Every structure is written in structure tokens, then in C-alpha cells.
């Protein structure tokens, strides 16, 4: 007799004026009863179903999925479709920027806002981060915090 595997996922996102939108997905599949004896296989099926459910919800709500097809560095927040370079800075570049800025008594986010019109250090691309590190090392930054 086949076994049933059911997963459900729901998510809500905030809207202006204290509103919200939500979506939920419930998936039910039949599983060969022989597979039930292998917890690893079952876990894998569950994980795949949740991935499917998550993608459906994100698509419905218009949320950009953090899971992308391109590789990402540990701190990267995936490629973007807004014309920026596809990969954000590496975690070691991020640590270096904060360390140099701290020594120089500079506000790193302020620097990023004025030089690159980005919100935060984390939004820099690898190239921008390299350039900023070079500038910081050579004292070519004029903004103090």
C-alpha cells in the first residue's frame, strides 16, 4: 500500500499601511511504501517538496528567491536583475572593509552610500569592494563618520 507524504507551507509579506499578503501551498504525493524504510530517502523527498512549495509561494508573492542557479559566496545575496554586477563581495572583503574603516574611524556604510550610491557595504560587488579596499588602504577616502 502506498504511503502519503504531505507538506504545507505558508508565508505572509508586509504591505504599506500595515497590510499584508499571504500565500500557502499544500502538496500531497504518494510514496512507495518500500521507500519508507529508508529515512534518508524520505527526508530527501520532503526537502524537494518543500523547495517546490517555497518556489511556488515566492513566485505567487513576487519574492526573489535566495536560491539562484549561479554559485554564491557565503555572504553573497545572489545575482540581481537590476543591472548591478552579479555577485556581491566576499566575506573576507567585507571583514577587511570594516577592519580598515574602524582603524581609520570611518563609517563604511556612509562611504558606500556616497561613493557607490548603495545602501550598505554588503551591496558592493567584488570589484567595487576591491576598489574601496585599495582606496581605504591608500587613504583616498575623505568621509569621516
Amino acid at each position, binding site marked *: 500500500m502506498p504511503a502519503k507524504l504531505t507538506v504545507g507551507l505558508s508565508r505572509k509579506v508586509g504591505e504599506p499601511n500595515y497590510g499584508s499578503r499571504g500565500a500557502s501551498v499544500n502538496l500531497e504525493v504518494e510514496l512507495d511504501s518500500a521507500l519508507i*524504510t*529508508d*529515512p*534518508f*530517502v524520505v*527526508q*530527501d523527498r520532503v*526537502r524537494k517538496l518543500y523547495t517546490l512549495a517555497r518556489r511556488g509561494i515566492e513566485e505567487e508573492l513576487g519574492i526573489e528567491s535566495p536560491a539562484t*542557479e*549561479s*554559485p*554564491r*559566496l*557565503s555572504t553573497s545575496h545572489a545575482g540581481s536583475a537590476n543591472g548591478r554586477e*552579479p*555577485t556581491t563581495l*566576499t*566575506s*573576507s*572583503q567585507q*571583514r*577587511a572593509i570594516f*577592519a*580598515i574603516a574602524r582603524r581609520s574611524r570611518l563609517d563604511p556604510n556612509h562611504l558606500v552610500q556616497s561613493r557607490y550610491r548603495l545602501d550598505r557595504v554588503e551591496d558592493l560587488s*567584488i570589484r567595487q*569592494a*576591491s576598489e574601496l*579596499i*585599495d582606496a*581605504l*588602504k591608500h587613504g583616498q577616502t575623505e568621509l569621516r563618520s
Partner: protein
Amino acid sequence: MITAASPQPRDYISYSAVRTFQGCPLRYRFRYLDGLSEEVVSASLVFGSAIHAAVEFFSMRQLSGEPCPTRDELLEVYQDAWKQEREAEICFGKNETVDSLHSLADRMLRTFLTSDLAKPRGRIIGVEEELRGELTPDLPDLLGRVDLLLETDDAVVVQDFKTSRSAWAETQADEQSEQLLLYGDLVRKLMPGKQIRLEFVVLTKTKSPKIQLLEACFDESKLDRTKLVFQNVWSAIQAGHFYPAPSPMQCGGCGYRSHCDAWRGNPT
């Protein structure tokens, strides 16, 4: 006897996990699914990690524009890393002691500091950088840690740091390039348009340590073959094919010997 522990499936694979499975599927199960700790760990493994920690500290200092660390500072990082392992669990080789290894570390770090490789030939863009990305659609993401990422005018260099009993032959870089090929495959998707260079930095654990820089060829057909191996290993893992693979080379230093002896089959 090993009782039925709940497997802990991960949503990624790593090179070391696949290599572990290839060496001994049961060891893979104990480590990655059952989450068992090894009863002993080899001194050479601890030593290599501690040297890595010192070199990582050195590179991070360079990236942050701080003065180059002295030999004493590097030794301190090495010793801190060593202390993180409890000595009782470390299995020393013949003629090895904590002191002899620390003295070796001193010589190796001195060699590193005075070598050309202490001056990177490009901009450092990653130190012990974690990469995660897709190898093939039917595999979980590959998760890896790259020792050093450098950017030059025309290339991104993916560098792996190795400690070795003896100097490598020229051909050894290509023979051992699988891990670097996989990481290089991820890096080229991150930085399109750049050539990818794969390099090993080998520091020998000899009386007079030597340092070598060896380049491995980015061989596309070998990369495809490596991915195929990963797919087959992953299929075997998913199918639950866990069994001991006795070998005089591996069993002696294995930290799961008592678990292995007690094993009486996979739980059903």
C-alpha cells in the same frame, strides 16, 4: 552495535564528504549521517589545520592593509589552533611529539614568510572563502572553502594550500586537481569573462622546508568526469549503500574503529 540513528541529510555536498565515501562508505555514514565524533584524530591533520590557520591570518592581514605578521605572531595563531584540539585525542606518528611538530611549524612558517609567495601576485579577493553553487541539476549544491582567491588583470587565481611530507612532482598538481577544478567551476560563474587559474602552494614538512607553487591545468573533460563521479557517489549515498571498506592504509588511523567493529548492518 550501532543503533538506528536519525540520518541528518544535508542540502549540500562537499568534496571531502565525497572523498570520505569513496574511501569508506561506512565512515561516511558515521561522520555525515550519524554525526559521530572520531575517537582519535591524527596529529598530521591537526598540524595541517593549525598551519592553515596561521597562513589564513597572514593573508587576512594583507587584505586588511595591516602590517605583515611576524613569525612569532604566526606561531601564536598556530598554537591557538593546536590548543583547540584536546591532546588526549590526537594520535601522533612515529617520532612525533607536540614539541617536534611545533618546531617544524616554526621552520615552515619561517620558510613561508621569506618566500615570494608571501607577496601575492594580485589583489586578494577571498581568504578561506566559502563557495556554494550548483554543479549539475541533479546534485545538491557543492559547498567548498577556497584557501585564497586572487584577481589579476586577466585571471582569477584559485589557490589551495597544502602541507606535504615531501615536495610534489610537477605532475602531481594535475593528478590532484579535482577539488580545485570543482571550485574553479563555481568561481568562473561568479566572475564571467575572467580566465581561471588553479594553483597549489605546497609547503613541505621536511627538516629544511621547501615551498612550491604548482599550476594545475583547467581540464574540462576531467571536470566533467569529476562531476560524473559525484553523481554516482550521490546516488549510492541516497540508496543507502553504506559498508566498511577495510584497508591497511586507512583503518589504522580511523577514528571510528570501535563503531566499525560494532557495526552489524544498516538499520532497516
